């Protein structure tokens, strides 16, 4: 409660502070309107929704030594009960001669990975509860204070502090990382205390004809399945007439997780795969196939999408999503779980940024 009040006061101060600066930069609005048809095989029910999400971004000039941004976001899924629900970002950054300070609600991206990233010890990128129709699969933000200290051209150290969700000081999140290049490999190592767990991690990224990335982390004291390894490869094939095919394959492994097939908790699954195929027929027209596969029970959640960038920042979008698997599988056509994605859905809509 106290935290919410403090955060509201902080946001109002930031909004007031940014208001004269906003005049010099255009606010940016992103609007997604996505009518959706769904089918749940378990109840044999068809349904229609008008899904929407809207964001408004106000940012200051970037050329000074202090800058800030406020992003308000709302969508048809999330009920708004407090200011924090719509406040996606509200932060300032201050550039001092030898370090940089960031304070407010923002995101920090640690490690590499489109869907699975064991090095994302602050927010966690190891679960399957994402929408494959989104261009950005992970986008959590939180209140934080961070200090970034450059150590040469390609290296830096970063320290972050996140206020606790509860009123207990012992639940404060703390993290630090070091980012550098050795030969041609990016090496990132760090540590975070999250909910009284100690989480060290290591993340590597390089190129062997194809791009690769590998991360690992563990939560101590360990609960067995907290040791996570994620890895990915990425390759782009140039086709005739400036067309291209991009291939990405990521996996998530919990060596001490459950190797059994069937309905198990998302946070205990031993192995998951994420293949992604994007065929760009033109700079304006692309076809995407994404899937989260549980190889142990051969179930999957897949999405096929078409994106037509018809005009400047205006896109027409169509997606078909499908869950395939038996009743007891991780992904199931006839899933009866509350909050489980529908067995089948079709979305046709548009996205506009202005």
């Amino acid at each position, binding site marked *: 409660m106290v935290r919410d009040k403090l955060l509201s006061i902080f946001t109002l101060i930031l909004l007031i502070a940014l208001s004269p600066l906003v005049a010099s930069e*255009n606010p*940016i609005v992103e609007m997604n309107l996505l009518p959706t048809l769904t089918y749940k095989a378990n109840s044999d029910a068809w349904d229609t929704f008008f899904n929407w999400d809207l964001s408004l971004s106000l*940012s200051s000039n*970037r050329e000074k030594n202090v*800058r800030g941004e406020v992003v308000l976001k709302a969508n048809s899924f999330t009920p708004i009960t407090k200011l924090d629900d719509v406040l996606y970002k509200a932060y300032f*950054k201050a*550039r001092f001669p030898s370090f*940089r300070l960031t304070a407010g609600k*923002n*995101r*920090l*991206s640690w490690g590499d990975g489109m869907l699975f990233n064991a090095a994302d010890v602050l927010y966690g990128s190891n679960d399957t509860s994402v929408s494959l129709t989104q261009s*950005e699969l*992970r*986008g959590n933000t939180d209140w934080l204070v961070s200090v*970034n200290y*450059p150590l040469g*051209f*390609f290296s*830096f150290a970063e320290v972050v502090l996140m206020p606790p969700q509860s009123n207990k000081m012992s639940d404060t999140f703390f993290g630090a990382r070091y980012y550098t*290049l050795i030969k*041609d490999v*990016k090496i990132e190592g760090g540590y975070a205390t999250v909910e009284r767990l100690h989480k060290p991690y290591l993340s590597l*990224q*390089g*190129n062997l*004809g*194809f*791009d690769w990335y590998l991360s690992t982390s563990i939560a101590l004291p360990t609960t067995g399945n907290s040791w996570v390894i994620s890895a990915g490869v*990425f*390759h*782009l*094939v*140039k086709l*005739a*007439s*400036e067309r*291209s095919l*991009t291939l990405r394959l990521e996996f998530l492994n919990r060596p001490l997780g459950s190797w059994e097939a069937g309905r198990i908790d998302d946070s205990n699954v031993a192995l998951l795969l994420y293949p992604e195929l994007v065929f760009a027929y*033109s*700079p*304006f*027209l692309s076809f995407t196939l994404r899937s989260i596969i549980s190889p142990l029970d051969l179930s999957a959640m897949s999405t096929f999408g078409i994106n*037509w*960038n*018809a*005009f*400047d*920042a205006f896109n027409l979008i169509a997606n078909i999503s499908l869950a395939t698997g038996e009743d007891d599988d991780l992904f199931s056509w006839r899933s009866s779980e509350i909050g489980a994605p529908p067995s089948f859905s079709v979305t046709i809509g548009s996205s506009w*940024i*202005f």
Partner: protein
Amino acid sequence: MYKKLPFLSMLLLLLPSLLFALTADEIIGEMDRLSTFETTYLTGSIQTTDRFGTKTSRFNSWSQGKKDSLIEFTSAAERGQKILRTEGSLYLFYPDAEQLIRMQGAALRQSMLGSDISYEDMTEEKTTLDNYEAKLEGEESFKNRDCYVLLLTAKSRSVAYPIQKIWVDKQTFLVWKAEYSTKQGRLLKEMEVLETFNVEDRVLPKQSKIEDKMKKNSFTLMTIDSFEANPQLDKRIFTLENLTW
């Protein structure tokens, strides 16, 4: 004796041009020299068009010699996205995700914002003569300008276009036109300068059109709106710290 006079007078007339005729390598060297500044700051746009649509991306760009450059996109859809090239590496910064990405290998072949320019094109640090063997094919008039016509043949397979034919202005060394082809001579792209501007006694392209010859109605327009030669740049401009700012 009198029969030889026309020949001798012709020789005398041609002598200066024979003595001062430039070789293909000298033309390319001068062309590269005049298109490179110690530092630059420019604003501009990339407009990409094909039969599925048209889009325009606006950007600010800073550069230092041939090795360091920073591009920041300012149009709504990409605002704040940045590309840094320094010390032979290319980095991307996505402000929405606060994500820093190092581009390597195949990822460099991706087209920049769907244009006819790839990230790989941006990482080019070598001079034209490092990559190509040049041969002077002759002289032609293009847009009422006397031009050298040169044929460039790639020295290795690492370049995007094995064959280039370029029309270089004899006076300003501006490349007015270029044809990019496969090794077998199949025309892939064509570049033409539509407008020019002058800076420090040099002529630079203000607007260029790059046409994809493999697709109907597909082209990119590169426009420079403002240009500053040799401005004083902040020392930390080409660092990761500034990229993620």
